């Protein structure tokens, strides 16, 4: 008997309309107030509906929003670090009130319904400083909070239609990954969050984690990114190639997480772990500067924060960065190798990127040749 990972908050959320409810909603949608969502918001709607954000059933109401800012927990004492909210500019739908039903459209078509429980204001600086630990406008998360409308609308949602996925073959929802892990017979599964093509350092972190678990779930987050980030296409194809050539096929799978990076460092690391718990993973890899940006967070802040959550329900696996040690003649890290200085070759993301931008492979001591070839052959490896 395979033990199953508990969903966050106890129950895997399913907010997808039945066919009958969907028919009824599509018929009434024309008469409802409507709000057109962008791709990121559409992803969030799908994530809520399919339980990626369990126990959330919709956008947060004021009490949960404030509780999270106050002590990183919902009003039911469930760990949660970054509010999932719907913001509206005051001029958009000014007459909405609690009790109303709102129809979300995506590319003009009704996608989901929101039953409004709460409409409230918030302090953007308080939000930014609590979640991102800064109010510096050059932080992308802070900039995003500042650009939000100043009314938040909370309440449960129901999803009528899926948004088209750019990579349908790799789009797995929590119920699917849970069945997948069960079919594979994996009892312990370690998740790896990524937004980059793999270099050797990533590969060794994953393989080290895999040696103490039954399976590895590589879960790149795709969606809106910063200019200069690797494109989703390149990330997916490089991992495909890496798994094909260097991983045990029965022990590693990749599926996508469709969620925008928030660059929230430690708080986002907790959110990342919660989402992977909902996918059915039991362990979660946290490396150096997880979900960080610039110099906003200290290198291991995203590891330290886990000590505040004894009830998170997913085991973080902390790693120091791997490097190549010329004296050991192997890949190592500071926990297993005593050498330093000239002996050490770091897998520097910026060094690797620099080579790739010049059209050169980073070298086989940094990146697998199959991986660099895909990046160099891509028309647009970086977000423009």
């Amino acid at each position, binding site marked *: 008997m395979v033990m199953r990972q508990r969903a966050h908050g106890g129950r895997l959320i399913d907010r997808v309309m039945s066919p009958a409810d969907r028919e009824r909603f599509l018929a009434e949608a024309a008469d409802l107030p409507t709000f057109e969502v962008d791709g990121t918001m559409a992803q969030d709607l799908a994530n809520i509906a399919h339980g990626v954000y369990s126990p959330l059933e919709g956008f947060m109401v004021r009490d949960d929003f404030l509780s999270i800012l106050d002590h990183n927990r919902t009003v039911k004492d469930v760990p949660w670090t970054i509010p999932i909210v719907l913001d509206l500019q005051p001029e958009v739908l000014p007459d909405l009130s609690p009790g109303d039903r709102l129809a979300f459209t995506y590319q003009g078509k009704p996608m989901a319904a929101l039953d409004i429980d709460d409409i409230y204001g918030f302090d953007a600086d308080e939000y930014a400083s609590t979640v991102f630990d800064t109010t510096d406008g050059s932080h992308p998360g802070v900039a995003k909070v500042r650009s939000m409308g100043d009314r938040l609308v909370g309440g449960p949602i129901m999803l009528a239609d899926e948004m088209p996925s750019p990579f349908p073959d790799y789009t797995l929802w929590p119920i699917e990954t849970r069945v997948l892990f069960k079919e594979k017979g994996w009892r312990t599964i370690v998740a790896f969050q990524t937004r980059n093509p793999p270099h050797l350092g990533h590969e060794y972190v994953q393989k080290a984690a895999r040696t103490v678990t039954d399976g590895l779930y590589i879960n790149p987050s795709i969606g809106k990114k910063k200019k200069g980030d690797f494109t989703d296409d390149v990330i997916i194809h490089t991992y495909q190639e890496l798994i094909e050539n260097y991983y045990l096929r029965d022990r590693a799978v990749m599926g996508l997480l469709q969620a925008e990076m928030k660059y929230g460092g430690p708080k986002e690391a907790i959110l990342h772990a919660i989402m992977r718990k909902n996918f059915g993973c039991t362990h979660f890899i946290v490396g150096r500067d997880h979900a960080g940006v610039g110099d906003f967070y200290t290198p291991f802040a995203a590891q330290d924060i886990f000590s505040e959550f004894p*009830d998170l329900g997913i085991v973080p696996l902390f790693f120091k960065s791997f490097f190549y040690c010329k004296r050991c003649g192997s890949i190592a890290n500071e926990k297993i190798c005593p050498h330093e200085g000239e002996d050490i070759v770091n897998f520097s993301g910026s060094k690797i990127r620099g080579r790739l931008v010049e059209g050169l492979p980073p070298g086989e001591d940094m990146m697998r040749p199959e991986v660099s070839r895909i990046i160099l052959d891509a028309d647009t490896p970086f977000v423009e």
Partner: protein
Amino acid sequence: MGKLVTLMGDEKKFTSVSIPVPLFKKVEERIRGTGFTSVSSYVTYVLREIIAEEEKQEDDDKQPFSKEDEERVKDRLRALGYID
């Protein structure tokens, strides 16, 4: 007025529980030099840890999805090549 509002807010967020004084002193001794700043924060931590563990045991036999759901999902996973 402002003070009253704050007080009411705090009352909502925290409440007190009685524990024997010798236990309180033991905990106080124990947390010295650790990351815990008070007996309350230690007790909160330990309770959350224990309750999470208990909930995990309770949930082990709960089926999160029906047999039909599972078959439907398996068909899709097979079509995508995730399982044979």
